[in-house]
């Protein structure tokens, strides 16, 4: 785990959280660096959204603590939940006015909204999911956030707005060195945005790696032969013609011990293999 980050903007120590009797987050310890973009993935119900909600202050943990860098005020933390919660009975105009007053924003950046071509007198509840995500992001961008928490929303936005959304995130990172922690399953759309990937499994992290390091550590073998037990197989996909084996951790020199070709794979496939591996483990 990447727990040794110096001067973290956000530290989570021994965090536990329960919903009723069910343990959702189990002794989580992580640090986040200023300006990094982190992708959190994992099976449904792993606790990803709960973690984000705890960081955002929507949920209060049962034990442990969440500490922000002392220079980060609560006004500089933005959160878009999967519910995209806003005061729905407000018009866009009223919502902006309210947000600006509460966060002390003098100049609201409406450039994103202009590209949507929506009326400011419209009620928030009448926006489409994509419009709403962009609207919400506009509010947060105007805060000039130092930490931005984005729950699983990207996949519900149409391709045009998705691109707009991601472009804005990149601008944010460039302009304000914002730390972005996002949950997403549509990895192919994410491009090179994430620098760090974390995978959760039932309340704790099973993986926390830089993207580059991770792509070096996960390889795929496609073969019609059976693999012997000497390789660390994370997940395998079988078909009548050939089998796919996902190897983790891959170490240099493995090729020389076998005749297999170790293929590089994309981030989205790596994450899928981890999730698939979880279900395979559960089946066995």
């Amino acid at each position: 785990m990447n727990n040794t980050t110096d001067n973290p903007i956000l530290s989570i120590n021994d965090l536990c959280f329960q919903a009723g009797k069910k343990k959702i987050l189990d002794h989580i310890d992580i640090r986040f660096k200023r300006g990094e973009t982190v992708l959190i993935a994992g099976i449904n119900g792993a606790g990803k959204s709960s973690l984000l909600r705890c960081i955002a202050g929507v949920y209060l943990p049962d034990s442990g603590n969440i500490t922000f860098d002392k220079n980060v005020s609560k006004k500089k933390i933005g959160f878009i939940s999967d519910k995209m919660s806003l005061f729905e009975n407000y018009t866009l105009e009223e919502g902006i006015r309210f947000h600006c007053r509460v966060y002390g924003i003098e100049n609201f950046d409406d450039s994103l909204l202009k590209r949507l071509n929506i009326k400011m007198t419209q009620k928030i509840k009448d926006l489409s999911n994509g419009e709403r995500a962009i609207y919400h992001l506009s509010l947060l961008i105007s805060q000039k956030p130092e930490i931005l928490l984005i729950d699983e929303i990207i996949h519900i936005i149409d391709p045009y707005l998705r691109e707009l959304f991601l472009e804005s995130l990149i601008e944010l990172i460039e302009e304000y060195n914002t730390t972005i922690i996002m949950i997403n399953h549509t990895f192919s759309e994410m491009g090179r945005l994430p620098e760090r990937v974390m995978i959760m499994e039932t309340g704790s992290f099973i993986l926390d790696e830089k993207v580059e390091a991770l792509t070096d550590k996960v390889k795929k073998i496609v073969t019609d032969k059976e693999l012997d037990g000497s390789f660390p197989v994370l997940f395998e996909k079988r078909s009548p013609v050939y089998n796919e084996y996902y190897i983790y951790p891959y170490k240099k020199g493995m090729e020389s011990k076998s005749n297999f070709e170790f293929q590089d794979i994309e981030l989205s496939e790596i994450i899928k293999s981890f999730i698939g591996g979880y279900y395979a483990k559960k089946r066995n």
Partner: protein
Amino acid sequence: MLRKETNEVLKQSMLLAPGVLAGTFLTWIGASIAKVDLSFGEMFFPIFQVGLLFMALFMGISLFMSETKNGGMEYLLTLPYTRLRLLWIKLFPRIVALIALFLIYYLALGAVGNNDMLILPVTFLLFSYISLFAIGISFSSFRGNLILSVLLAIVTFFVFLYGEGLVFWIAYMLKSDLMEFTVRLPFSSLGFPWYSLIIALAMLSTLIISYLYAFKTFDLKISRKLIKKFMKVFIPSVLVVMSLSVAGIYMIIDLPNGGMYFLTKGNLVLKDNYYSSMKVYDRDSEREIKYYDLNLFHCVEKDNYIYASSGYKNTRIFHIVRMNTTNLDIDVLYTAEPKAWIFSQISVYKGTLAFIEYFRGESVSNLVLLNLETKKYKKINITSGFNLDHPEIFGAGTLENQNFWAVYSTHRRLGKVVIAKEDGTQYEVKLDSLNVPLYVNGMFILFKAEAIEIGNITETGFQLVKQISFKGRLMLYRSLFNWDMNQPPVKEIFLNSMESGDPWERKKYRLDLQTYDFHEIKDLSNTYGYFKKSIDGTWFYIEVPFVRDSKNPTISIYKMNEGKPMLVKKIDMLYKDGKWDAYSDWVHEFETGLIVKNNGKLHVYRFPDLNEIEFKELE
């Protein structure tokens, strides 16, 4: 954020005006249908009070309603405020609005200047107002079903009220030597001694402090954590406050000197104290009666005995006892069944004591006929059919050499008379009478909506002898007579009638039972008062000015002579703090005379001359 909350609160507050006006309008419709004459203020202010209470509850319970309804709860919780700051921003405009609404109410009431239009005293209203708001707030965090939350909050409010009453009850129980069920709860009568308010507020503060403490854990979930945390502080703190309050009340209270009085034919005053042993006073001394507490409100005096129902020691079982007025010996004539109650009037006719023994929630009561000589009794089952209203004996007589008792029961204006004979047979007649009928001079007198009917009741029904047209609300009760039903023929009866809708304004009428002449007595003013037939058959009218409006509180007693009132006594009531104390001064009338409490002192006036008899120890 404050602006958002202020706008929300303004919108909510605006609901009060149409709500109260609609309520007033509905009351007006109801009053019109029921033909009750109410002024606008009499309809408007009670509805305003109820509206205020609902508004307080609603403002508390809807603290997070708009966010929950509009999906903004998560957004709200991410705003850059601490939980307590968030709560304060939510509460501040609501508190200001509630204060403003209460002031509007208070000023409007002041402008009208008539406190009689209230259904709740202002102190109690204010306390309820604050309590309902606080309880509402504590239910708002659970964000469940609104209607369910409102119902639960109302239940909690009553639990809270009874909790406060319980504190007094325990303290009084510890101090008093009486059986438990005779202890009155000060709270239940809406009377607020100063320390009662302090205790209520202290109990309320435990609720508020617990909530503030628990609110730190307020988050998106309907949190068990919050409830647990709330309960962890609330239960011990409220128990501590209640225990300290019991100890405090125990130390500071003197048991109130309240009780029921009875003036006997032989000039004894009996007093059944609410909180301590019963006492009997003669002119020079007092004697204590241990273990018994005679119900003097429903007793009857015959020869040298007082007959009454009574408890004995700390038991709930009712007894029928008789007290010898010479030596004050008490002997038990009858012990009721363990689940039975004897609360209604006891009457005596010839050698038989008659009373009703009823069972809570059951529609069958017993008419018990007790032979005073042999002490043997006979029970006759009376099926009232209405278990809400208990049957009562209103007459006794003899027909075909057999004694009978007339029993009346009523429920929502439907009434019936059961004629029960001493051989156990009975028959019933359905009646349309607004009040309990009278049985005088061997005739039944019914008070109908538009007539007085005099006649006989036989197995075939009511046989009309005379009908007198009259529209009014005549008020005449058997208690104006003697419960010793061995009476010589009565020449006349006098009645009060409430006709204007003002309960304190009454017209007076005389009904001649020989000629059936019925006319208004115009020589008497329409002020509040009542008639009483004295032991020698003379009627008196006791005029009691309604205390709140009275500038010259004088009790005037008139002797009725051939229907003409003759003033025989005036008793000037003392002022206390500039006015007559409506709650501690009173007049109790008996067939033997009057007992008047005036500025804390008791005075006994004896019929027929109404001279004062001094009792040295009476209090």
